């Protein structure tokens, strides 16, 4: 099997657009790093060497303080443990992640009011970007907030496209009544006001639902209100491809509906869809941030950029580091995604590379 030379050409072109390509690599790198986030930004040590035994607390159950000779049986505070080992000066040692805080803990400091300023502005040691109003490390919040946002946006994109492509393709392929009713239903559906629906649904979800379940419900609601856009494109694209002679040739050979859709029509329509993906991802990040900002997004205490922005606007004068770091992070991510989107569009633009000369 050989890569379709047209695809290869597009990929070469994409790589040659430096800004977009590097943004793409950076985004992929950041996403991969964020998957290993527990090793980089965490309150648990990566390894502990204690009394001749090895411990790897990062993943798995909590290790009670008593294991390491503390007098409490809740989770060990590894930062305290590190300080103790240093004082003792024995063979025991541990390795903390570069940022030694998790996004949920609120660390109290004597004589420092929350929110604490960044360490280089006279705040407590270790908090690179300071803490938020409840004393949680902002870097950790941003880091995990990025992870949640990017993977939420990717899941959103996949689901939206799956639904939109399927329904649009069926409408275009079967045409006639299917298409007619589909279109009318979509018109009605897309007139339901999204924000009110979200508010209503969120007010009736019982608080007993766990955070992942609530995130999933939010995802489903967002997808339900977003798939219609893709059907417009898919419907016309399917109509167009279905009327072309290669589809006719497949029918004359005896190909069934499934083969025609999956082997012929979809491969010819999806190449354009690639160019929409970055913009959908950007839109998803924007809308999840906006929802969080309004308080109808990811359930607390999920780390989120929108939630930090909200805090930041309330403490604009007293703690400017909150809003500035959250804002900078959001702009940074959206800029990267947009650069990728521009490059993809330029490289894959079907007007530039027609399949048939």
């Amino acid at each position, binding site marked *: *099997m*050989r890569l*379709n*030379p*047209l695809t290869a050409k597009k990929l070469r072109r994409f790589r040659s657009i430096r800004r977009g390509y590097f943004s793409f690599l950076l985004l992929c790198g950041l996403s991969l790093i964020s998957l290993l986030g527990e090793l980089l930004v965490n309150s648990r040590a990566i390894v502990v060497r204690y009394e001749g035994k090895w411990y790897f607390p990062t993943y798995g159950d909590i290790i009670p303080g008593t294991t390491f000779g503390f007098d409490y049986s809740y989770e060990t505070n590894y930062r305290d443990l590190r300080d103790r080992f240093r004082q003792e000066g024995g063979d025991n040692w541990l390795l903390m992640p570069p940022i030694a805080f998790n996004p949920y803990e609120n660390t109290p400091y004597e004589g420092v009011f929350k929110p604490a300023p960044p360490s280089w502005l006279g705040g407590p040691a270790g908090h690179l970007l300071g803490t938020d109003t409840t004393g949680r490390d902002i870097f950790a919040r941003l880091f995990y907030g990025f992870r949640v946002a990017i993977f939420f946006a990717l899941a959103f994109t996949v689901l939206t496209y799956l639904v939109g492509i399927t329904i649009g393709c069926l409408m275009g392929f079967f045409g006639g009544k299917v298409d*007619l009713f589909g279109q009318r239903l979509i018109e009605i559906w897309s007139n339901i006001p999204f924000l009110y629906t979200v508010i209503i649904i969120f007010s009736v979800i019982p608080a007993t639902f766990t955070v992942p379940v609530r995130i999933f419900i939010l995802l489903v609601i967002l997808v339900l209100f977003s798939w219609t856009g893709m059907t417009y494109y898919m419907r016309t694209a399917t109509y167009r491809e279905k009327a*072309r*002679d*290669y589809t*006719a*040739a*497949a*029918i*004359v*050979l*005896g*190909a*069934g509906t499934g*083969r025609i859709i999956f*082997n*012929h029509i979809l*491969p*010819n329509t999806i190449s354009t869809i690639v160019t929409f993906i970055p913009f959908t991802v950007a839109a998803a990040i924007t809308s999840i941030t906006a929802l969080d900002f309004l308080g109808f997004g990811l359930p607390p205490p999920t780390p989120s950029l929108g939630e930090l922005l909200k805090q930041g606007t309330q403490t604009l004068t007293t703690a400017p580091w909150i809003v500035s770091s959250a804002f900078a992070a959001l702009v940074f991510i959206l800029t990267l995604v947009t650069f990728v989107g521009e490059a993809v569009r330029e490289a894959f633009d079907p007007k530039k590379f027609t*399949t*048939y*000369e």
Partner: protein
Amino acid sequence: MIASPNGSSPTARSSASASTPSTVDAPLLEIRGLKVHFPVKGGIFLRAKASCRAVDGIDLTIHPGETLGLVGESGCGKSTTGKAIVRLVEPTDGEILFQGRNLAEIPRRQLKPVRREIQMIFQDPAESLNSRHTVANILEEPFIIHGIGDAEFRRKKALELLERVGLTAAAADRFPFEFSGGQRQRIGIARAIALEPRLIICDEPVSALDVSIQSQVLNLLLDLQREMGLSYLFIAHDLAVVKHISDRVAVMYLGNIVEIAGADEIYRDPRHPYTRALLSAIPEPDPRRKRKRIVLSGDVPSPINPPPGCPFHTRCPHVQEQCRIQKPALRTTTEGHEVACHFDL
């Protein structure tokens, strides 16, 4: 890349009278009163407002091993006729008898076995080959669809087919757009013969090609016909191309057949005024035999609102009162020559 399977000049088919099949054979395909009307839709509920009579009651027969040429101006319903035979469009009325079975009535799902017997070659090979598939994929697809052989067998078949249409095995892993127009059409032909059909609908298979390679492709079609005993319905919009390849020629005008005769005969002795006009438009290389150019007045009427009576009466130089009222049926004038005209002109 192209190894021309034959000499450069196309074999003049019509001179090989020995190959003209005897009419004693049972016809391979017999079309009776075929009509294809497309609904013309309008309004928000897309209700049919009128109908476009693309094919308006035609009779045709094709015998085994025979080539029937079908000619006519753009929009007269040639492609629609071809598409109706392979059920790319649904016939509105009439019978399409293939080896005794009426294809017009078989439910779509049960057509699959018949698909092996009737194939189609399209006008523009750039459109009829999926640009996402390699040539090998394209040629293996017929076997996959009909569940023939394993991957190894299909690959072998694909390479054989390529060789058969004059391409090298190196073509297999390339994509259609990496070939020239003539080579692409060879790939289209290879796909059409993959399942060893009996009948191939050739819808203007050379009109998208350079004149210089048209004859090579026509020769390939003739060679394949001889080797495989194929029958062709050869659609073209001018009589010049059809002359070389056809045994018989049918002339179509506005959804109707106006004249059918042997390829030689129709050139020598055209009887329908429309056929005469078409023939007079062919450039004649021999100046002494120059025909008088007949220029038709007016435009082809719309198939949505065809004229009553003879479909050609609005443009016919010999139009009479009867022509405006009564539609002439095809009638036999001499053996094997049928004309749809009220008069012996």
